[in-house]
């Protein structure tokens, strides 16, 4: 057969798959609507920045210094001073019922101690049910106290610390978690879409009985595979491009790196997602199994990718598993291109594992076409 005929064959198969996917109005909507809604909702919702630290103050000290501290705290844009309490017994219900995240308890001797050159004691009581929120609120409050300390020291009223820290964050100068999360969503949503499109494609034909018809045609299974892979690849890449544009234009993410390096990453990532989707699909007999299979892959893939929590914090054995997760590599690429001005030379360690994942899964899918598990 000539190359031209092969090409025509692949195109015909791809068109058939695309039609099967897009003909139904509901499935069309499902591919377009939810991802856009999710991008917008999650883009705003998923933030580690605390901008409403709810606070109650229990001040036993009548002095000047405590008033200054309270006005510093309540003047901060990220702290909402909700209650001023008079009695120790009021602390517990406020924290228990999650009315406030933090109670600042200023001891009676606070101002007196400071004016005598001793350290004034402040107790910070936090709700640890969400430990991350508690830590961020604690760091934030400490920062305010540190600034106050340094200012008092500078005014010559007191000794300040002899050493100060001068901290600077690279690449994300104001430490906006939205930059981190929205860039992660690019990977997350294109994984979901390309996986679901392909995971159901073989299972659906199996359930409807048309897959056997396809197998008895003179078309080589490799072509059936390519035909089934193309729609997932196209939709995945389109989806990723759309989100990239929205991330830059709507969410104001910086785009500092190389577009080519990013798109090589998008291509390899989508290809490996499609490979995994097709592999799941050819193992499964029914669509229900395929959806569950996609899910069984998707949930760990998201959790272990470093999307929300860093891979470096995981135990070593779990870190080994993350090397099987294509999203892990892609997230490094996206975030680096957006924030670190990354380019090809930084990304080889991310590219080749995705190539291997794609080749392995696609080959297994092609083999499984013929050799059903049961």
């Amino acid at each position, binding site marked *: 057969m000539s190359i031209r005929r092969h090409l025509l064959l692949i195109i015909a198969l791809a068109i058939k798959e695309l039609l099967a996917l897009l003909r139904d109005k509901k*499935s069309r909507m499902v591919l377009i609507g939810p991802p856009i809604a999710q991008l917008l909702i999650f883009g705003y919702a998923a933030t580690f920045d605390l901008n409403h630290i709810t606070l109650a103050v229990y001040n036993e000290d009548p002095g000047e210094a405590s008033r200054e501290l309270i006005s510093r705290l309540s003047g901060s844009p990220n702290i909402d001073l909700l209650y001023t309490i008079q009695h120790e017994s009021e602390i517990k219900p406020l924290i228990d019922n999650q009315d406030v995240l933090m109670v600042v308890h200023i001891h009676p001797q606070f101002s007196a101690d400071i004016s005598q050159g001793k350290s004034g004691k402040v107790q910070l009581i936090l709700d*640890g049910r969400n430990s991350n929120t508690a830590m961020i609120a604690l760091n934030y409050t400490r920062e305010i106290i540190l600034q106050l300390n340094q200012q008092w020291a500078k005014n010559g009223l007191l000794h300040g610390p*002899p050493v100060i820290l001068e901290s600077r964050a*690279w690449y994300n100068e104001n430490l906006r978690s939205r930059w981190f999360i929205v860039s992660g969503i690019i990977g997350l949503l294109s994984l979901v879409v390309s996986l679901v499109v392909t995971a159901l494609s073989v299972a659906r034909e199996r359930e409807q009985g048309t897959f056997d018809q396809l197998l008895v045609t003179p078309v080589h299974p490799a072509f059936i595979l390519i035909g089934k892979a193309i729609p997932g690849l196209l939709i995945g890449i389109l989806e990723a491009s759309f989100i990239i544009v929205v991330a830059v234009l709507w969410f104001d993410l910086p785009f500092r790196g190389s577009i080519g390096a990013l798109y090589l990453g998008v291509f390899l990532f989508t290809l490996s997602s499609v490979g995994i989707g097709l592999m799941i699909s050819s193992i499964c007999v029914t*669509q229900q199994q395929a*959806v*569950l299979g996609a899910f069984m892959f998707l949930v760990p893939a998201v959790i272990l990718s470093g999307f929300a929590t860093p891979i470096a914090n*995981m*135990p070593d*054995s779990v870190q080994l598993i993350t090397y099987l997760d294509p999203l892990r590599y892609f997230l490094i690429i996206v975030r680096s291109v957006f924030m670190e001005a990354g380019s090809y030379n930084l990304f080889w360690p991310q590219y080749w594992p995705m190539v291997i994942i794609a080749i392995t899964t696609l080959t297994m899918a092609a083999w499984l076409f013929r050799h059903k598990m049961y």
Partner: protein
Amino acid sequence: MSQNLRLQRLKGLVRKETLQIIRDPSSIALAFVLPIILLFLFGYGVSLDARNIPLGIVVEQPDAATQSLSGSFEQSYYFSPHYFQTIQQAEIALKFHHIQGIIWLKQNFARQLFSHTQAVIGVRVNGVDSNQANLTLGYIQGTWQDWLYRYARVQGVKLNIPIEAEPRVWFNPAVSSRMFLIPGVVAIIMTIIGSLLTAMVVAREWDRGTMEALLVTPLSNIEFIAGKIIPYFVLGMGSLAATVILAIWLFDVPFIGSVGILLVTGALFMLVSLAVGLLISVLSKNQFVAGQVAIVISFLPAFILSGFVFDIHSMPAAIQVITHIVPARYFVAILQSLFLAGNIWPIILTNTAELLILLLIFSRLVAKKTRKRLE
């Protein structure tokens, strides 16, 4: 119509669904294997507590003071220091992700330290993962402050820091993220099982053409819905029990509240999730669409909008309104209190009430949309 006949019909349908569950191993796998996998993943895999952060240290002029400072970082559980000769080398390492941050002690550090002008320590962190960067900065500050007190004591200098803060973190004194993630995981697992399982069950009948067969039976709407829900409810509650027991047993998460409240609120939450699943199923009538919608509507919102990892109060007001229709939000709040803080009635009651309202709305919608009619 006699009550007896109704009951018999319902029993028949429940039996059919149960057989379908048992014969397709994937639902059993979803109900019992997935929770275990997820628990392991979250319990061992997901942690916001950093340890051994690779930290570059540049000392331009080593002496006793710089040595004791870098010693503090070496002893810290949070850092594993790497030394660099120059700041340029360290910055390259930061760029290639070999290290997460840099501590830079400049040449005049020691001189400034003894001349009573303030010495400056330069700190750089990679801010791409902003949350991690924030925590790293916090740890650096903590290590630095400890060193400062110790160093002052050794030098015999009286160190007067005007305000000294003593933090107390209630319910989770070790500030371990696992303690707060595990209760949330239980809620996420329940969401997935409840809505994903049932999302497929009505759509499957349409896909396979068996819906017509059900249509010609004298089955009423309510019986149809009940027949679909009961077997999955049993499956889901079994899975809830297994998950909670495993969570407490494997991860030493305390469970301070009462088991009775857990069962009641858990059952309520299960019903809401099942109703969401059925609604998806009834509306989409096609497994492909139902499967997609279930993934998009159940798992991701439960993960992101429930307050499980991301704090709801920090979201924009419009998004906070949306979180009210995410059932997982209420169950996460109930579970976090039950596990770590005990029976905090105001939290349990308000969240239970909201779950009840959601259940009414969703079940009403399901009943309305389940029309036994061919189109």
